[in-house]
């Protein structure tokens, strides 16, 4: 194995040493790589948006009607929560740029808690739908009265919000990892790449929700 990249050469918060790339170039390369990865995430959701758009056009009335079943208040609250967490994530990057590791810990912890709150609200939404029977497997779902267009709407709804929730979960995992590093004073103005990448990923998760919320909750 190549020598451990985390060897603390050059004291606390110094960038890791690579044999093939200098530290500044490594930072820009990592950020550019992350933006490319975000591009693939956007494409991942673009297929879902396309499917939703075409079925929304095809079954407009029943999609309208099915959308009224969603609780827009919870959706709106979730949007605000994610916006706030996105803001604290950006501040965390600033804190890293001024050598304030504890600032990074504080801000990312706030973002992490907001992510948790988002998932809890999502859980309430899903369980409320389960009680009303708009969940696959319930007897209302299998009954004839539940038209296939309804099923399509809720199917797409669960796939989109479910995949988004999964991305929130992954984002929270990444935040946790960076919090763990920040507590060990790993970052400084000379090296804060993981903080920036975690924040970028978190902002993407927020971006996707910014589009999901109006499309799913407020369409008619």
């Amino acid at each position, binding site marked *: 194995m190549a020598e451990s990249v985390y060897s603390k050469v050059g004291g606390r918060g110094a960038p890791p040493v690579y044999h093939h*790339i200098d530290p500044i170039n490594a930072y820009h*390369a990592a950020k550019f790589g992350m933006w490319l990865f975000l591009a693939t995430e956007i*494409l991942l959701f673009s*297929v879902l948006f396309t499917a939703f758009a*075409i079925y929304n056009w095809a079954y407009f009335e029943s999609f309208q009607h099915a959308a009224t079943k969603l609780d827009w208040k919870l959706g709106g609250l979730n949007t605000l929560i994610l916006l706030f967490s996105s803001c604290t994530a950006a501040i965390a990057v600033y804190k890293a740029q001024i050598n304030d590791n504890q600032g990074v810990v504080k801000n990312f912890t706030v973002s992490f808690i907001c992510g948790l709150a988002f998932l809890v609200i999502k859980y309430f939404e899903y369980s409320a739908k389960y009680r009303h029977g708009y969940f696959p497997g319930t007897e209302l779902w299998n009954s004839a009265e539940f038209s296939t267009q309804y*099923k399509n709407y809720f*199917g797409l709804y669960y*796939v989109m919000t479910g995949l988004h929730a999964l991305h929130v979960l992954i984002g929270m995992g990444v935040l946790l990892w960076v919090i763990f590093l920040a507590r060990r004073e790993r970052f400084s103005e000379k090296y804060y790449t993981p903080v920036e990448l975690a924040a970028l990923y978190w902002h993407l998760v927020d971006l996707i929700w910014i589009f999901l919320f109006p499309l799913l909750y407020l369409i008619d």
Partner: protein
Amino acid sequence: MGAADYQVDEKGHLEKNNYLNCEKGLKSWLFTIDHKRIALLYLGAMILFFLVGGLAAVLIRLHLWSSDSKLLSPDMYNVLFTLHGVLMIFLFIVPGIPAVLGNFLLPLMIGAKDVAFPRLNLFSFWIYLLGALIGFIGLLDPVWLVSKIKGSAIGTWMPLDTGWTFYTPYSTSTGAGSGWGTIIMTFAAFVLGFSSILTGLNFIVTIHRLRAPGLTWFKLPVFVWSLYATSIIQVLATPVVGITLLLLIAEKVLGVGIFDPEKGGDPILYQHFFWFYSHPVVYIMVLPAFGIIGEIIPIFSRKPIFGYSAVVFSSVGIAAVSFIVWAHHMYTAGMSPFSQAFFSATTFGVAIPTAIKVFNWVSTMYKGAISFEAPMLYAMAFVFLFMIAGTTGIFLATLGLDIFYHDTYFVVAHFHYTIQGGAVIGLIAGLHLWFPKITGKMYNKKLAIFAFWLIFIGFNVTFLPQFILGVQGMPRRYAFYIPEFEPMHRLSTIGMFFNAIGYTLALLNLALSWVFSKEKAPANPYKALGLEWQAPSPPPHDNFINTPIVTVGRYDYGKPLEDLGLKGGVSG
């Protein structure tokens, strides 16, 4: 490792301490982060899948020898052509040139020590193997096997027989294991796609950030430009197949009809999403081959590439156009007439850059000093085969003709000319050209040329008759056919023998020369210009003894190397 530790002989050969023998043991190979070793790991795995896929092709051709042959049952025939399609596309040719020659040569060609994210490179290799493993499990109807163990098996054991396109509703209803085979197989395609995305991402960042000083964008080799265009497609097209899989799973688990017509879905929507990925993927296969041919012809004609900027812009042009043509696979699927006309028009947009490339290659040879070594023969054969592939592509792009030719053997012959005649011949040509750089030895030239002629004749005898079958109207994926088609199928099967023997011979020649050849290859056997020829062969772990500064253009032939400040081998 200072420059002194490497004993490079005067011809540029590095016997000890090169990347092959600087670390020993299986662990040093399986967990290497050296882009050159990862390239060889990919090469080994891919040749294996190529042989298995080739075997399936041999069986198919043998079965088609007569119109009602008893060699295979219809189910087994369907399983074999699915296996052939999946193996050759997902496991061999999509990672093909980018993962092997791309990984090995990109850092060398731009004067870098390694790709931008070496550990990510190793991770993509392991994801590739994981995907291959899941793929094989998916093919062999695991759901039935598991239920058999639990004793509640219904029906019979039925490996995946949906074809590599997995068209719904067939693939999700009665396919292997009542649709579960397709789910596992598309999950394998997603995992393989993920490996492809990461390779593309790695290459884009490497080309942007790790170029040697003085190597501006328009001094980059043509092969690097084609890798750049390929990586753009890899990064931007592959996620779509991943999410299409997720929709298949959601459809099965949630009982929702996104693609299933009984539940209000639209199977043509599946085809849209599938071909949105699968058409750009055919350009992932063929673009690197264009790059390799663009490297070979200048070297063996001793002439600069004709119209460098035209070749470069046509590579990126093909990558761009490849995203707006996907529905020419669906003219007869029941799309609206307007979209058929639109996609027919955009498909012709792909023909222009390809034609420009071919014209430039041929013009490069004007007034050159052409020598006919194996790579040059492959390159010239490539131009001939790709002329046929390109022109038959025009037939299929024309809306009126495709109504007849869609899903007939004309299409089978066309895409074999494009993929086998294009990408595989490009890969074999590249392996022959850079063999001294990769192994530090020289392959047996006579055997290589003999194998070339076997491949060339065998390939044409196999697939030209299939064009005629297409004109006669024989549909694809037929296990039995009416007697009128028999003569052409017999001719094609005869050709297949030469083709198969040719490939085995070519690969065997390379493998045996690597192991047994005593001839020490110099750093620059063809006296070519270009950074990768200034590194010793085989190159050390960090590619260059001292970081190269680019003074001479890659294609400035016409003056003796010494005047250009290059000692005919190791730079500086």
